[in-house]
């Protein structure tokens, strides 16, 4: 069971500032969803490899154990987005850097 304390802790980790109403709703929803998720414990998964990616299992049409065809590209310099365009959607810049509120109090 997720507690109110857990909700506050996880919101903190995720950098979310939930309102009182949102926290109450979140507590209810998380417990309902995690309650449903509990059914995974019906399965014995000892000795089962975790599957983190599809490509590590199948890509390339090659036999298991062979090199995967997708792997890496050549390490060549290619042009990247011009500085100005990369900054163009930022809420605040000085033209060179992104600007943020003061990090260190002096």
């Amino acid at each position, binding site marked *: 069971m997720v507690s109110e304390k857990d909700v506050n802790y996880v919101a903190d980790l995720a950098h979310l500032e939930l309102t009182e109403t949102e926290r109450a709703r979140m507590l209810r929803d998380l417990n309902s969803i995690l309650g449903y998720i509990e*059914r995974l414990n019906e399965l014995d998964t000892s000795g089962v490899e975790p599957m983190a990616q599809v490509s590590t299992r199948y890509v390339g049409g090659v036999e298991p154990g062979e090199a995967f065809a997708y792997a890496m590209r050549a390490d060549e310099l290619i042009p990247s987005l011009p500085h100005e365009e990369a900054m163009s959607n930022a*809420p605040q810049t000085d033209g060179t850097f992104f600007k943020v509120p003061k990090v260190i109090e002096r």
Partner: protein
Amino acid sequence: MNIDLLTVESTRTAIAEKQFTAAAMVDAFYEKIGKDDPDIGAYLTLSEEGAYAQAARIDELAGRGDALPALAGVPIAVKDVISTKGVRTTAGSKILANYDAPYNATVIDRLEAAGAIVLGKTNCDEFAMGSSNENSGFHPVRNPRDRTRVPGGSSGGSAAVIAAGTAVASLGTDTGGSIRQPASFCGVVGLMPTYGRVSRYGLIAFASSLDKIGPFGKTVKDAALLLEVMAGRDPMDSTSADVPVPRYSDFVGQPIAGLKIGVPGEYFGEGLDAEVRAAVEAAIKKLAEAGCEIVPISLKHTSYAIPTYYLVATAEASSNLARFDGVRYSVRAKSVKTPAEMYRRTRNEGFGAEVKRRIMLGTYALSAGYYDAYYLKAQKVRSLIARDFDEAFAKVDAIVTPTTPTTAFRLGEKADDPLAMYLADIFTVTASLAGIPGLSLPCGNNSDGLPIGLQVLGKHFDEATVLRVGHVAEHALAGQSR
């Protein structure tokens, strides 16, 4: 000019034969969008400038009598999680309300190089998280087949434009069913390719081990024609596979006699609507008549797919969405005094309820003390689900199921119950987790006239067989879906 009946091929042919110009056709589409879309809500942004510029290029080629590229003049709509240079790209979220993508996704470059015309960007559930399109940060989409109902999600807008005739083809993304489920609800064709088949460069990420870009169209052949342009290795996406791209459209129309079609018992149990079952069973009968051998199979971990998906997908989402911090490209909350306050207030104001819920669930599943119990456990069950398919595909060439257990539900019907909403994806998440391709195509209507979807699943990188089977089913069932 009757734009309602246009397909990919007939559009190109009509322009080549000078039945109309691309520019006049674009006019006709924008006129129809202006008239019909306000009530449906499928488009978020129209890209008129780019559309007319591309139309002019196509008309110039046609005027000179030059050979036209494969998708010449085909008007497409693009889900708003896919980047379009210089055109607002919101991911359906208020946090990106003012974001103009500075570059094109690879799929956009490829489709435009083949002559396609991007009409605009389509509405979707925020960051592709949802099954009804009601989680859009802007407004919901109404199902063109019944405007009191949802179009499905998360690519609801991209399915709706096909059903409404306000685009000839469109792009969606599928993470747990987000192409196939809305295709089913709107009575159109939607294809989720194999994981790694289509580059995701320029796609705003939701769950990176699951996200795929795929096409919607009126016909299976249209989906094939788009896929063969979109697919293939892209150096800009290290997860795109270096696997040869067949001409998928060549497989459409090939006979399917002798193919073994698996029918998994788990997809025909409790919770399946009786009319959906009857329609899908009728479609399976047609495949048997076309010479397929119907083989009962078991995908025994099916009932564990939703819990597995909601751990894997939310864990990845919580990580992917950390980039929305108010610094580089999002809206920033006003008058914040510290960076911490900036992150929190920006994210709280910018994200909707479902996105917050998934970030919370994912963060919880990855947090110290819970990682093994939730995230690692889910990854192991994901292996079991993938193994079910491996074992099945040792015996059969394709698998056929209903796409969804019910037809489109009403707007608001499941909006307050996240778990009920998640269960709408029960027949689609399995293939998403395994990374195999899946197609949904119309398979008749229920007694209320609502579309029913047939799902065809195939082996990794075997879209060709999926499309072949889909095309035969489509033609055997012709006339039942309108």
